[in-house]
Every structure is written in C-alpha cells, then in structure tokens.
C-alpha cells in the first residue's frame, strides 16, 4: 500500500477531537511555522510542492496565493470551498468528518502565508452535522490558542467562521460562492478582475478547496521535495479519489497522484460488481468527459487526463457497468445541468434545458433521427460562450457521451 498523507490517522477513534489530533503530532508544525518561519517561506515551500487545487480546476495553490497583492491597505480574505456539489464527489465530507483539525491547521498556515486575518468556510447546506463538527473544532482550537487573537503569542490574529450554503450547485464556482457569501443569489461574476485582486466585499481573496488546504500541514512538516516524491507524476502528493457506482467497494481511496485509473477501479475498489463487464468510467466528477474501457489505462493526473480529452476534476470516479443504458446517464447529466444553470447566459440556460428536453423525448421512445445532431449542435454552441465554466462543464460530458455512444443512442431512436 502506498503511503497515506491526509488519511493516515483516520482509524484513530475521535481524531476529530483536538486532544487526539495533538497526540498524533497535530498543531506541532503550526507552532514551528508561526514561531520560526516568515510568511514568504511558507508560500515558496507550497509553490515548490506543486500542490494543485483539488476542487476541480487544478490550479497550483502557491501560485494563486502569489497573485494576492502584498502591500495593500485592505482586509484580505480566505474562502474555503466546502461546497462539494460536483456529482460523484464526497471526499471533503470525509476529511471534515474525520479530521477537521487538519483542515484548520492548513487554514491557519495559509492565512499566515498570505497575510489574511479572516477566513470563511463555505460549506454546503446539507452538511449541517459537519458544520457543527467544524464549529466545535474551531472552539477547541481557539481555547488552545491556535485560532483567534495573538495566536501562540506571535501577534498573528485569525478569525474562522463556518458559513452554510443553502442548496445551489453553482455556489461551488468560486465567484458565485463570493456572491453567495455576500448574501446574494449565487450568480457567477465576470472575470477579470480575479478574486485575488477583487474578491469578497471587493477585497483581495484566496479561494481554495478543503482537500487542497488539508495538504499544507504535511508540506510544511516534511518539505516540498518529500511531497513531490509522493506523487507519481509531476504534481505533488496524493489525491482522495472517490469511487462510486457499480464497483464492489465504493469509497474514498487516498493514492498517489498519477495512480492508474484501471488499478483504482479494479484493485482498490475491487472491480465491477456481480461479475459484470465494465461499460464506461467518468473519471473526475460529472463534468468530466466519459472514458470507454480501452481508455482507462491512464495516469490519474491533470495533464494525462487532459491529453485524453477529459479531466481529473474533483477526482470523483463514477463506474458504469454493461447493464446501464447510456440514455439513462445522458438523461441524468442533462437534467442536472438544466436544473443548475443560474440562467445568466443564454447559451447555457436555453441550451441545457433544450438538450434535456430532447434527451427526455428520446428516453420516452419518441426520439427523432436528427436529435443527436441537434444535441451536438446545441452543446457546441455553449462551449466557450458563457460567463462561468458551468457552461463548458455541461457541454463537454454531453458531447463525449454522444460521440462515444452514438450507436447505442441511435438504437433508442426508432424512426
């Protein structure tokens, strides 16, 4: 078994309590970082670690932090993205349930590196029990002097607040998240300006995923070189791959970045259920283009999946077996995006709802010959023509399904 980083102590009972976490060495590195290092040391270590964002886009975290202007007379913010709405994704829940202090330690280090004194954890509304767990963990950390005013008597202040969303997938998109946190509808903003310059309440803001930030403590403990070596590709570290669907052992598997998708499905997740044959794999959450069985001998890193015209996204692997009708998959995908489009851009709003209508018609057995071409045309029209990446996130998987399973889809269309 490869070495685990984030989940290594997950079998410790009550790890979510600060005493247990500290018994395992928790907050030791934070003490050293705050007392012995300068903010720029933390930033350069994380840059050297090639820590890519775990939320979907895979942007290097250290580089993103570097975009925040240094000497401004404005407050700066950290927004932790705990919205976890991408269908197939359940890894952040796993971290927050088992090891909330790991996330908090990463948050304090990140805020120290960037000079931030206020952090909000934006957590999806359904995760109410996890929000409570995080709040308790924050209180524990405050009592021990790891969060709050004058942390560990170093003069560094940080407030952390848990903020619950209320059910809207689009609020996981970073600028929609900012709108939502400001108390408005979650309509994405036009970029540029980027949040690093103009973010929450118009101030410089860093937005990072839960898993991304949870990697910072071990980078600071063991160093960037060690972290890079944990990955099998250029990117550093491990990923929490969430495998679901028709496998024998669905669950979260922490494995080196660059582990083979085939190994993940067949060795770790136990292979396909009930001796069935594999039909397809969605490798990085619902937004990622689908892969056929002959395409899964692939390294799970951002670059390799991009080369295969798909993406690593949130590392959420959905496995389909031979019994799953592809029209069912297409129906769920198109239903989701037509439901979750915020409606600001015409191609996304109209395109997705129209595609969904056509797909439902095909599902009912009333499909027309030209329908697949129509879907392709509508989806291509969304690509690159929208304000936020949800448009592309909808069009790409739809196009890949129609292209790779055209024959099967045609068989649902009789006349």
């Amino acid at each position, binding site marked *: 078994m490869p070495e685990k980083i984030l989940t290594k102590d997950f079998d410790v009972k009550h790890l979510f309590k600060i005493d247990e976490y500290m018994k395992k060495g928790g907050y030791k590195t934070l003490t050293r970082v705050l007392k012995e290092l300068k903010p720029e040391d933390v930033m350069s270590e994380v840059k050297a670690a090639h820590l890519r964002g775990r939320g979907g886009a895979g942007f290097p975290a250290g580089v993103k932090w570097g975009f925040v202007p240094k000497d401004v007379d404005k407050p700066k913010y950290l927004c932790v993205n705990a919205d976890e709405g991408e269908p197939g994704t359940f890894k952040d829940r796993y971290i927050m349930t088992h090891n909330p202090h790991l996330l908090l330690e990463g948050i304090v280090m990140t805020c120290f590196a960037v000079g931030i004194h206020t952090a909000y954890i934006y957590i999806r509304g359904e995760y109410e029990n996890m929000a409570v767990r995080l709040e308790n963990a924050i209180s524990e950390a405050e009592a021990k002097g790891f969060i709050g005013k004058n942390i560990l008597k170093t003069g560094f202040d940080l407030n952390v607040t848990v903020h619950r969303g209320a059910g809207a997938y689009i609020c996981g998109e970073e600028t929609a998240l900012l709108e939502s946190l400001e108390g408005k509808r979650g309509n994405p903003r036009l970029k540029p300006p980027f949040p690093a310059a103009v973010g929450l309440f118009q101030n410089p803001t860093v937005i990072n995923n839960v898993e991304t930030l949870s990697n910072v403590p071990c980078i600071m403990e063991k160093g960037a070189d060690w972290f890079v070596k944990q990955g099998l590709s250029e990117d550093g570290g491990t990923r929490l791959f969430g495998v679901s*669907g028709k496998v024998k052992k669905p669950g979260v598997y922490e494995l080196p970045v660059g582990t083979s998708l085939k190994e993940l499905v067949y060795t770790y997740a136990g292979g396909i259920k009930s001796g069935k044959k594999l039909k397809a794999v969605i490798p990085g959450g619902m937004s990622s283009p689908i892969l056929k069985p002959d395409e899964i001998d692939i390294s799970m890193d951002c670059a390799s999946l991009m080369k295969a015209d798909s993406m690593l996204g949130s590392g959420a692997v959905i496995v389909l077996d031979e019994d799953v009708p592809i029209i069912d998959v297409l129906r769920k995908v198109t239903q989701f995006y037509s439901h979750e489009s915020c409606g600001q851009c015409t191609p996304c709003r109209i395109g997705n709802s129209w595609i969904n209508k056509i797909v439902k018609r095909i599902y009912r057995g009333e499909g027309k010959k030209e329908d697949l071409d129509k879907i392709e045309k509508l989806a291509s029209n969304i690509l690159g023509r929208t304000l936020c990446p949800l448009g592309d996130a909808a069009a790409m998987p739809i196009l890949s399904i129609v292209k790779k399973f055209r024959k099967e889809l045609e068989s649902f269309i009789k006349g």
Partner: protein
Amino acid sequence: MSPEIKASTEKKIKELMSRYPKKQAAILPVLHLVQRELGYISEDGEKWVADLLGINPVKVREVVTFYSMLSRKPLGKYHIQICSNLTCSLMGAESLIDYVSEKLGIKPGETSEDGKFTLTTVECLGACDQAPSMMINTDYYGNMDKKKIDKILKELDK
C-alpha cells in the same frame, strides 16, 4: 405582524451578524435559523429579516427563491430528501422514490395532509459511496432499499 422568533434565536442572530463586515452577508445563516424556528420562510419572516439586515424585502425574496433548501411553504415534520442524481440512480434511486411516494401518498414536492412528511428529490448529496442515499431532516441515510425504508418510516410514524 412580526413572526415569533425566540429571544435566544435573536441573540444568536446578532452574534452571527457580528462575524461579517456587511450585515447582508449574514442572510443565509439567518434564514436557516428562521426556517428552523418557523418551519418555513413566511412573508412576515422575509420582512423581519429585511428589517434586521437593513435591506429591501425584495432582496430577501430574491435570495429565498434562489436556494433550494429555503422553503416558502411549510415543510412536514420529517423532510425526506432522496438523491436522484447519477450514482444514486444507477443504484436504484428512481424506484425508491416511486416506492416512498406510493407509501406516503404524496408526490415529490408535496407534503402529507397531516403535515408529517414532505418528500423531495435532490441533486447529489455528496454521499455517493453509500448510494442510494437520502436525508431526513439533518441526518444522512445510506445504502437504501425498500426494507430499510419500511423500517425507517415505521419508526417515524410511531
């Protein structure tokens, strides 16, 4: 008429508001508390929140209608939400939704006449490893099948 908000809730709301540089930012946490207390967001509730945050009630309405967890209709004592997204559907969610719907005599989106149950379908709940999954109020239930549903509903109907 102002809605009946407990003094303790009001105190909690004031504490919440102090955590943001602008009052309006507290709207979701405040609406969550109001919905918990009143069972839904009534028109009076909307006005009350608007006054509290110093914004136009239209702004509150805009927010309430955007987020699927906020309800402008009273919800049942038990709010059953079944995931109808991809993984859960692969694992049989659609027939479970039909099953629950038939058992309770309500369609998704409806509340039973006695006000006991509301049934809704939801997008991915972030629990696909336990598909099909569902929630009742704030608790998660995983690996659902008809037998488990029977047992849970029987418990709740006591």
